[in-house]
């Protein structure tokens, strides 16, 4: 079978970074080709070159055997190359349908828009994805997961010959991922070539035909997905073995209660949620998209107002009306949307890491201790393996996973007693993921109370000492962590809708 795409000897340099060194990659029609590598390995950069977003510094690209030079996103789409970018690039003020068809709106005469047709066609795409979403919903009112689905719908609507998916599932939960895979398989059977990037290793086995691994901007190898064990792929990626230590649930029942939330309420999003976290404990929050876990965390953190509810820290009621109140009471919150809520992307790594802890680096006169911040930042860069030319690199120039690590570093530095981590490993590679798990466990061992919200069930199960499950704004149950709890038990609680619900107490 002839190749659909072939890239040879691709070179790309950014100031201070040699991002791609003579990388090659090929794609056959009707295959799913996974592109793997650590954060900052150059995966997104390679794909941005293929999709006409960046210009290559060297190398050749062939499309169906003919040399091509996609010099703009338009040129790439015209060739039949579509891409779902890693970072959401939607127009927030427009509706879902308007986003999907931007640039290709159904028109009537005189440049008039055919809005009903637009909404109808979008609804068709959504239903073909088995996605129930109002095409007229404004994008900035959607959760990040739904926004991701809109991006996917947009890419599908192009009916491309080559579809690049750069971490499409980072924000999705299992059900949504399964739905996406159905779509991918259908496209594959239609002869579309799909390039698939993900840090979720299990997905590779489920969907990929071949796997290409990159490391440090270089091509490592291309292997068959089915016959190659995951551990081999991982060691090709990180250049070493990553050992997974099984969860060891400590007995924290005797510890002091660090955070108690009583009867938290807000509209339909949060309906009477109560829970406690003890020192040294990791409480996981599981649930489907829109279950309200983020909302609970934000309400506790004071980022959103709440209608009712009491928050006690170390047994004392605290009044939290803003994030600064929360931080003063020792509560930290790492947001799930790093770009919008986590980072000042125009500022450098050092400034972002120090952003929540500036008072620590400030003299009485208000002068900043730049040296102290540099040392601290470099410590975290080493500890978390943040790939950056220096601590003065602007954060927006880092790869997605490395940006996430910067946010993690910011909250580690802030050193709160109670820490909410909302999707802490979104877009983070396997190696770094286990580093972060280790860090969370260390933090807990030091006596902090950790709350982890994650849409990846394995992650919740890997980390949590207890697992709280939410459904439609209600806390439907709290399960013990460790081997006794199964995925099925969690899913049952996560889908326990109101009518079917019996009153639940704390199971643990």
């Amino acid at each position, binding site marked *: 079978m002839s190749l659909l795409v072939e890239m040879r000897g691709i070179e790309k340099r950014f100031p201070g970074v040699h991002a791609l060194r003579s990388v090659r990659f090929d794609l056959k029609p009707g295959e799913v080709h996974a592109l793997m590598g650590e954060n900052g390995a150059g995966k997104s950069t390679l794909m941005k070159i293929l999709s006409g*977003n960046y210009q290559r510094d060297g190398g050749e690209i062939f499309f169906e055997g003919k040399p091509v030079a996609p010099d*703009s*996103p*338009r040129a790439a*789409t*015209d060739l039949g190359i579509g891409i779902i*970018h890693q970072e959401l*690039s*939607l*127009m*927030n*003020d*427009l509706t879902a349908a*308007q986003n999907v068809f*931007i*640039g290709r*709106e159904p*028109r009537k005469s*005189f*440049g*008039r*828009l055919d*809005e009903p047709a637009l909404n109808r066609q979008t609804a068709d795409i959504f239903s073909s994805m*088995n*996605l*129930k*979403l*109002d095409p*007229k*919903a*404004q994008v900035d*009112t959607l959760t990040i997961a739904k926004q991701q689905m809109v991006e996917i719908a*947009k890419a599908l609507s192009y009916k491309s010959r080559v579809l690049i998916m750069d971490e499409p599932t980072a924000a999705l939960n299992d*059900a*949504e991922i399964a*739905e996406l895979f159905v779509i991918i398989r259908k496209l594959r059977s239609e002869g579309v070539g799909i390039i698939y990037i993900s840090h979720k290793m299990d997905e590779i086995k489920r969907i990929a035909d071949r796997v290409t691994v990159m490391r440090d901007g270089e091509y490592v190898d291309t292997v068959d997905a089915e016959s190659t064990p995951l551990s081999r792929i991982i060691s090709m990626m990180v250049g070493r073995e990553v050992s997974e230590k099984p969860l060891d649930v400590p007995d924290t029942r005797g510890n002091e209660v660090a955070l108690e939330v009583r009867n938290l309420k807000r*509209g339909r999003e949060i309906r009477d949620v109560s829970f406690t976290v003890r020192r040294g404990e990791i409480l996981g929050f599981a649930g*489907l*998209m*829109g*279950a309200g876990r983020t909302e609970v965390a934000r309400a506790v953190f004071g980022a959103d107002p709440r209608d009712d509810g009491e928050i006690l820290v170390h047994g004392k009621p605290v009044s939290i009306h803003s994030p600064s109140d929360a931080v003063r009471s020792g509560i930290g919150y790492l947001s799930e949307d790093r770009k919008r809520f986590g980072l000042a992307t125009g500022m450098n790594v050092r400034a972002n890491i120090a952003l929540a802890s500036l008072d620590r680096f400030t003299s009485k006169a208000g002068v900043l201790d730049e040296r102290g911040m540099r040392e601290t930042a470099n410590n975290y860069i080493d500890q978390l393996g943040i790939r950056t030319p220096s601590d003065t690199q602007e954060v927006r120039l880092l790869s997605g996973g490395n940006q996430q690590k910067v946010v993690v570093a910011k909250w580690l530095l802030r050193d709160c007693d109670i820490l909410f981590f909302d999707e802490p490993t979104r877009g983070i590679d396997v190696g770094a993921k286990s580093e972060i798990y280790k860090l969370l466990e260390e933090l807990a061992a030091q006596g902090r109370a950790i709350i982890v919200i994650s849409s990846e069930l394995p992650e919740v199960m890997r980390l949590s000492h207890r697992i709280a499950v939410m459904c*439609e704004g209600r806390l439907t149950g709290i399960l013990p962590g460790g081997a006794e709890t199964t995925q099925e038990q969690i899913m049952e609680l996560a*889908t326990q*809708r109101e009518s079917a619900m019996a009153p639940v107490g704390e199971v643990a």
Partner: protein
Amino acid sequence: MSQTIEATQPRQKKALISSGAQQRLLAFASLIVLLIVFSIASPNFMQTSNMIAILQATSVNGVLAVAATLVIITGGIDLSVGTMMTFTAVMTGVVLTYLGMPLPLGVVTAIATGAFCGFCSGTFIAKMKIPPFIATLGMMLILKGLSLVISGTRPIYFNDTPGFDLISRGSLIGEIIPALPIPNGVLILFIVAIAASYVLSNTVLGRYTFALGSNEEAVRLSGVNTDRWKMAVYALAGGIVGIGGLLIASRLNSAQPALGLGYELEAIAAVVIGGTSLSGGRGTILGTLIGALIMAVLTNGLRVLSVAQEWQTVVTGVIIILAVYADMLRRRKV
């Protein structure tokens, strides 16, 4: 995936009028409060002739504000609307008075001149990547100077073009309904506003206007020629400014070459009071009209009350802040 999806719908179904209509009505709240207060304070305020004077006073600023709205929704700004208006008036004067051409050609000149100037600003911004603030500041100065140069720093009168002053001052409506002598200028403002509103919500140009202001990079990545559309928006706004130029020229029966500076701030103020965000991506023409009316009612009302001029300024400042604050509260609630 189906478990979690809920349609976006108004929270309370009990409300007697639909939340959409309610919201639209509430947007007028500040305006209506102002009208009521002034009516109570002065018996002379609520007269037909004074209401018409207010509408007349709104017409030019309103048209400029509509133009500014388009540009602001793209995330840009147009500081040149005031002097561009003057420039189009002067060019109309050249065509009608100096060259003695017939009236329709004058109308075409005004709109074409405006569209061309807007196109130039758009080119500076889209092609030369000059920030809108600077590009239109430059345009503002260039057009201010050129108006003076071309007119020889003298007003150009339209005495030789009979009917020219009727563009703004005549009243088609008044001829049909004598009790309602609404001047044509006001009629034109409403036509322009309705047309702009239609373009914004029903055409491709309108769609890209919002899209550009929302996330220009995303639009570009979707393969849209953003430069071209941006230039088109600025040109359209320029054309509308040309209509503003016609209105003011007709109202003053002359092209006043030194006029225009400061009008840009008033227009932008109307836009922002009307709830359009300066960071782009959202805004409505209706809001802008309300904003322009708030400003006109305020100015007129304080004058009718014979408030001392220095205090008029203070009160205007306070009320602008309060009106927008009220609007903020309303939005947070609804």
